[in-house]
């Protein structure tokens, strides 16, 4: 029995170690982006409490920036909420992707896990090999959430002390984070590289075409490119099944 406990603890710590290792970069990547959000919301005339609620209740990077933008041009709450729905509907596809990868997890935990499916958390989770345990997911999400909420507050309160261009340059952090998460993937798979670039180009094209409402182009890109990719991947999937 003690041996068994020892073994479980050993696997647990291994898993926790993995999760912390994956969580620290997310934390560090989120902080500057969150600071940028805090600074921007103060400039938009939002109160500290509202700013805290924004990051703690919504917890969605890009769409919070979009919402600030829309608030400042005077869009109605209904319009902003609808835009957010369209922009964040991509998380529907991301959650669908993750839901097939989780091991046996009790339903009550799924309610919590779903709250933390951001682009960056999703990206890290989706490139992790093997089944996803709730411990791993939670540790990753807690690192992301604490960085996002803490960074937002820090940006709001201390933003005035930062040089303006430093605050501005932090806007690049979320994109750099996504790219850094992606690089190991495109390094090992030509297909991943082709799909990524194709998706970006398609998005540029759709935005230039300007027939879709704000935010929908990303969803259309994910759908079309993942569909195209699924035709290339079939043989590989079957190989894995037969192994």
């Amino acid at each position: 029995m003690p041996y068994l406990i020892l073994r479980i603890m050993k696997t647990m710590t291994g898993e926790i170690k993995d999760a912390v290792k994956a969580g620290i970069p997310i934390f560090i990547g989120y902080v500057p982006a969150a600071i940028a959000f805090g600074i921007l919301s103060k400039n938009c005339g939002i109160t500290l409490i509202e700013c805290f609620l924004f990051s703690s209740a919504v917890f969605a990077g890009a769409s919070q920036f979009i919402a600030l933008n829309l608030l400042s041009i005077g869009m109605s709450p209904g319009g902003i909420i609808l835009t957010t729905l369209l922009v964040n509907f991509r998380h529907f596809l991301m959650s669908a992707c993750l839901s097939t990868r989780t091991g046996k997890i009790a339903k009550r935990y799924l309610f919590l896990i779903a709250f933390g499916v951001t682009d960056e958390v999703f990206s890290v989770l989706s490139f992790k090999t093997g089944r996803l345990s709730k411990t791993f997911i939670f540790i990753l999400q807690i690192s992301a959430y604490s960085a996002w909420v803490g960074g937002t507050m820090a940006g709001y309160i201390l933003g005035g002390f930062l040089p303006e261009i430093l605050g501005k340059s932090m806007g690049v952090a979320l994109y750099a984070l996504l790219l850094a998460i992606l690089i190991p993937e495109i390094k090992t798979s030509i297909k991943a590289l082709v799909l990524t670039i194709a998706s970006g180009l398609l998005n540029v094209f759709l935005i230039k075409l300007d027939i879709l409402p704000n935010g929908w182009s990303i969803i259309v890109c994910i759908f079309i490119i993942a569909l195209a990719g699924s035709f290339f991947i079939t043989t590989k999937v079957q190989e894995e099944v037969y192994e």
Partner: protein
Amino acid sequence: MNNIIIVILGMAAVTYGPRLLPFLCLTNRQIPKRVDAFLQCIPVAAIGALIIPGVFNAVPDKPVAVLSGMAFTLIFGLWRGGIIIPVLGSVAVTYFVLFFTV
């Protein structure tokens, strides 16, 4: 209740809903192979469209600064990998380019 609180609560609801629904419907279900292949392609498709072209507007009016920062992330990421240095480095490079071009 003021407008901003309404916006926040509404945004929270429409963000959480789409994140939750698939977990409730799909978890522990047998997924057809074709659908699974589609789902496995979502990450790269999503990241591609999330980065391009949004990154060009990450710092308004100064795409050069952002592109320098991202170039650093790409080069360092391909060379040594990791996340922390590529991310913090991109902010630093963007800052320096902004600093010297403004």
